[in-house]
């Protein structure tokens, strides 16, 4: 008896939600440009990319709530949600979709071949099969790559620690983007004649132990733009800084969180560049198929002065000058 009552309540919940939707549909007749934005997970860098995207559109005259309407959804790291959200954007007949991070981009690209898709925070769109080639996408997908200036970062280690012999490479073995960057870093280290040690983690709980195992074995530690390490920076810095080991990281957000320094991608600037591309599509009618994947030009030198003080490292004059810019 009571069970039936609950069953009815449950069903009526669904019916009410549906009718609510129809009502809201009826009221929502406007001619704003609809933009769907799908982000894989909450993360400082990804959040910054989204903020940059919105700001760039506003600079180009597309202000959210005025001429455009941005529907921002976060999949909470659950990939099944990526697909549900992508379906929602397509059902809503979005005019343009922004996908932040690789699985989000793949979920959207799998479902539509007509709606222009802008991607960001994807390192190599070509190997993720989002575009036919990074130079000439040939699909409805284009955007910006967050490939970091890895070579410049390894060179930065040499500048900060001229007598460096061994670098520890700290990253999550399951992140494709990280592995890709580490391969580049190894090439650069080989070229500079620096040896290296791999230190991989597979869950954030392992970070502390793995980092501790590096102490005494390496002169510097390097992490690429790795999501797991990025989230665990305070743990890493908590071990490396007292041990006086410089921690060079892949991007600025990681420096703010406690890493020593980087020549890095600024995700806000990257998002902005993506927003500019969106404006080109919306205003000039450009087609993603002919818009090459863009890379952020030039890295920003970023330094965490508190970490520098704790390690007691002397930053060369020329780098400090770059910081002032």
């Amino acid at each position, binding site marked *: 008896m*009571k*069970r039936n009552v*609950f*069953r009815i309540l*449950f*069903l009526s919940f*669904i019916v009410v*939600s*549906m009718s*609510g*939707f*129809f009502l*809201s*549909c009826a009221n929502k007749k406007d001619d704003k440009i609809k933009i769907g934005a799908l982000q894989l997970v*909450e993360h400082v860098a990804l959040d910054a990319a989204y903020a940059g995207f919105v700001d760039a559109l506003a600079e180009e005259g597309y202000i959210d709530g005025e001429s455009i309407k941005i529907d921002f*959804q*976060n*999949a*909470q*790291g*659950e*990939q*099944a*949600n*990526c*697909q*549900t*959200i992508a*379906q*929602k954007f*397509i*059902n*809503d007949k979005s005019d343009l979709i922004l996908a932040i991070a*690789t*699985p989000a981009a*793949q*979920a959207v*690209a*799998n*479902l539509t071949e007509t709606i222009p898709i802008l991607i960001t925070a994807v390192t190599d769109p070509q*190997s*993720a*099969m*989002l575009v036919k080639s990074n130079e000439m996408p040939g699909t409805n997908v284009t955007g910006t790559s967050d490939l970091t200036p890895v070579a410049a970062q390894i060179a930065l280690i040499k500048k900060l620690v001229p007598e460096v012999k061994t670098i520890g490479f700290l990253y999550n*073995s*399951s*992140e*494709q983007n990280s*592995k890709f960057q580490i391969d580049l870093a190894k090439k650069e280290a080989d070229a500079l004649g620096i040896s290296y040690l791999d230190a991989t983690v*597979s*869950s954030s709980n392992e970070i502390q132990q793995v980092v501790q195992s590096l102490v005494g074995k390496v002169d510097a530690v390097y992490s690429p733009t790795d999501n797991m390490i990025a989230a665990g920076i305070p743990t890493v810095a908590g071990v490396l800084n007292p041990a006086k080991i410089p921690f060079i990281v892949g991007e600025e957000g990681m420096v703010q969180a406690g890493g020593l320094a980087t020549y890095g991608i600024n995700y806000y600037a990257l998002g902005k560049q993506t927003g500019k591309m969106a404006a080109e599509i919306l205003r000039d009618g450009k087609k993603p198929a002919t818009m090459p994947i863009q890379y952020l030009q030039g890295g920003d030198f970023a330094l965490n002065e508190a970490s520098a003080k704790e390690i007691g490292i002397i930053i060369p004059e020329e780098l400090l000058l770059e910081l002032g810019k």
Partner: protein
Amino acid sequence: MGIFLAIQGAASQGVLWGLMTLGLFITYKILNFADLTVDGSFALGGSVSAILITSGFSPYLSLVIAFFAGSLAGLVTGLLHTKLKIPGILAGILTMIALYSVNIRVMGQANIPLLGQETMLTLTSSFGLSKTLGSLLIGSIFSAIVIAILYWFFGTELGSAIRATGSNEKMVQALGINTESMKNIGLMLSNALVAFSGALVAQSQGYADVGMGTGTIVIGLASIIIGEVIFGKRFSFWYRLMSVVFGSILYRIIIAIVLQLGMKSTDLKLLTAVIVALALALPVINEKMTRHQKRKINRLQKKTEANKKASIQ
């Protein structure tokens, strides 16, 4: 129109995830074993299918191999539990985290894109069906087949022994049945279905990713419970199996609708937790309510008796 499309999309996803829910139903409801392996075996199915497809195997064959890969994962959990006497939940967790490394080994990387590759959706799109409708059709066919097979299987002597093991292990042991092998078979079948579902989902969403299994156990439990609350425990076993798949579809529809309604996706996990908690709390609430009513009735009866006595005197 939008809501119709949203429901269609949700149903197509729900029916593919429904196969996973059927797998979880076997362990959670039949064997009475909360098996956390599924987070790993779901991604294992996707990984196996994706790597086989990109190396040129037929997408259908990849489904079969994913099925068997999943059953191996289940066997590992089963052996950890039955032979090494590790508590069930812990055994599941151990296999789940081990599978994380295994999946990366299988794929050689963390993510394999299947965009533009031949998948089972290539066939349905050659009939002119969209990806969503194609997934819905394929998912429905497979669900129907799996439900039919499971219904038959759990009616056989072996299947009945597995069901009995879940209900009363000591009793079944007394009958001379090896409950350890019953548990192992159940776990293998369950994880095989979960991996099979993972393979279908990977093909439908166009990529396999090492993180694609995150939250599988919660989605599965929510689906089973929603199905049970809405459709009830009526008729026979086939009805319960069907309600599991419908529960999975309903779960997806609820999520799609609340998203369409404009709820922030950051609140989704809270919503899921509330749905599951409510559904789990139902039996207790029911019991309290009936007890409360009984007390009321008793009080009324006493009153009327007292009145009667008074009137007699």
